[in-house]
Structures are given as C-alpha cells and as structure tokens.
C-alpha cells in the first residue's frame, strides 16, 4: 500500500531508463499472512531501496511525444463549427497535412529551406533559415501567453 509517494519515491535518469527508488526510514519489510513485518537481518535506518511493492499502472510519465505527425485533414480549419476529426496517416504522402499549427508549419518550411541550403553547401543561408525557424517556434509559443506589464504612476506626475 503506497502512501505519500511524492515524499517517499524518487527517480534517476539513466540512459533510456529511469531508476526508481523508495525512501524508507525503517528496515526493508516483507508481508507474512497479510501483515508487513520487518526482517531481522535487514539494515534499520534511512535508506533508499528498490520498489518494495507491485502497483498496477503505478508509474506515469508525462512528456512531449511524437504522435500523429501527419493527418488526413487540415488541423487548423474547423469542420463547420466543430473541431476537425483527424485521422493519423501512417504512410504519409504529399496530400497529407502536417499536424501542426499554421505558424509551426511555416517554421517547418524554414527548416526545409535550411536543409536545402545545407545540402547545397550554403551555410550562411542555412543559419539564416534556422534562425527563422526558431523565431517562428518562439512566436507560436508567445501566442499562447498573455503577459500584462503594469507601471506605477508617479504621484503628482505632470503629463
């Protein structure tokens, strides 16, 4: 029975894996006839141990993912008044849509131009388009944020 997992579990990234550790202040325990008992030969004190119980769907990762990069319809156009129904295209071709916002699609175009310049050996042009690529990615992110800046008005200010 796990409890306070945010205080008693830790992880460490090792290559393509994570290592899970459980923090205990007692000795390692075992279950005997439904009762957890402390084993006599175990070290007693603060320690990190391997997970000492099985939890179904107990570990959850959250992250950015490579999901549905190509879809059958334009993800930025409404279907009437509804959100478009997107179907993943596993073998994409020229007619398929890239599942990105308009701004990120334009960033992708800059990336393609950059790669074209790279293959022709024009590194200056490549760098220029990569800068444009990141600029558009940044613009797309700032579109989601509204930042208010307040300035205090000086008392008795004459304007």
């Amino acid at each position, binding site marked *: 029975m796990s409890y306070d997992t945010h205080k008693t579990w830790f992880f460490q990234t090792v290559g393509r894996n994570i290592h899970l550790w459980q923090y205990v202040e007692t000795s390692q325990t075992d279950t005997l006839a439904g009762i957890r008992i402390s084993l006599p030969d175990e070290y007693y004190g603060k320690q990190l141990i*391997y997970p*000492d119980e099985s939890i179904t*769907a107990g570990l959850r990762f*959250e992250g*950015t993912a*490579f999901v549905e990069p190509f879809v059958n319809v334009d993800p930025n156009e409404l279907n009437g008044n509804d959100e478009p129904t997107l179907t993943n295209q596993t073998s994409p071709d*020229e007619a398929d849509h890239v599942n990105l916002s308009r701004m990120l699609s334009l960033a992708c175009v800059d*990336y393609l131009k950059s790669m074209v310049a790279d293959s022709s050996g024009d590194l200056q042009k490549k760098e220029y388009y990569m800068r444009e690529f990141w600029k558009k990615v940044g613009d797309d992110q700032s579109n989601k944020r509204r930042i208010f800046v307040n300035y205090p008005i000086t008392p008795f200010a004459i304007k």
Partner: protein
Amino acid sequence: MTVLEMMERSGLKNTTLAIAFIKDAIHLMQSQVDVHTATWKTNITDGTREYPFPANMIKLKTVSVKDTTDSKYKRIRRITHTPVVVEDTDPE
C-alpha cells in the same frame, strides 16, 4: 499545411526526403517546446528498479507514482546523485 505545399514553398523535390525532414523538424520543436504532450502508464514491479522511457516520448516533463491509499498520481522528485548501493539484487 500539406506536405506538397511545404515542398513547393521550400523548393524541395523529393517527397521521401521532405517527410523525413518534417519529422526531424517536429522532433526539434518538441525537444524545446510543448507541441503535443502525452502520458504513459506502466506497472511497477516489486523489486525492480529499472523502467524504460516510452518509445515515442521526446522530452520528459514529469514522473509520477500512484499513491494507492487515495488513488492519485503524485509527482516524484529526481535525485541528482547516484546512491551508494550496498546490496544490489539487480546488478547491471
């Protein structure tokens, strides 16, 4: 925007290469910003410490472990230093 439109705008002629470059661009974006996020769940096994990252995950944001006493996933912290292992039942 379609793949064809991107190819026309960039002057790229090869479709296979264009699709490969678009995938690269998406990976590059996803490494820096959150375009598409997802969650993955896996079982924790008694006595096993090593769990692989999901295959299609690009950037890790959080790791949570289920608190079975109140059925909630709680975000766990990362340790920066490798602990001294005195008894290792799962050596690598």
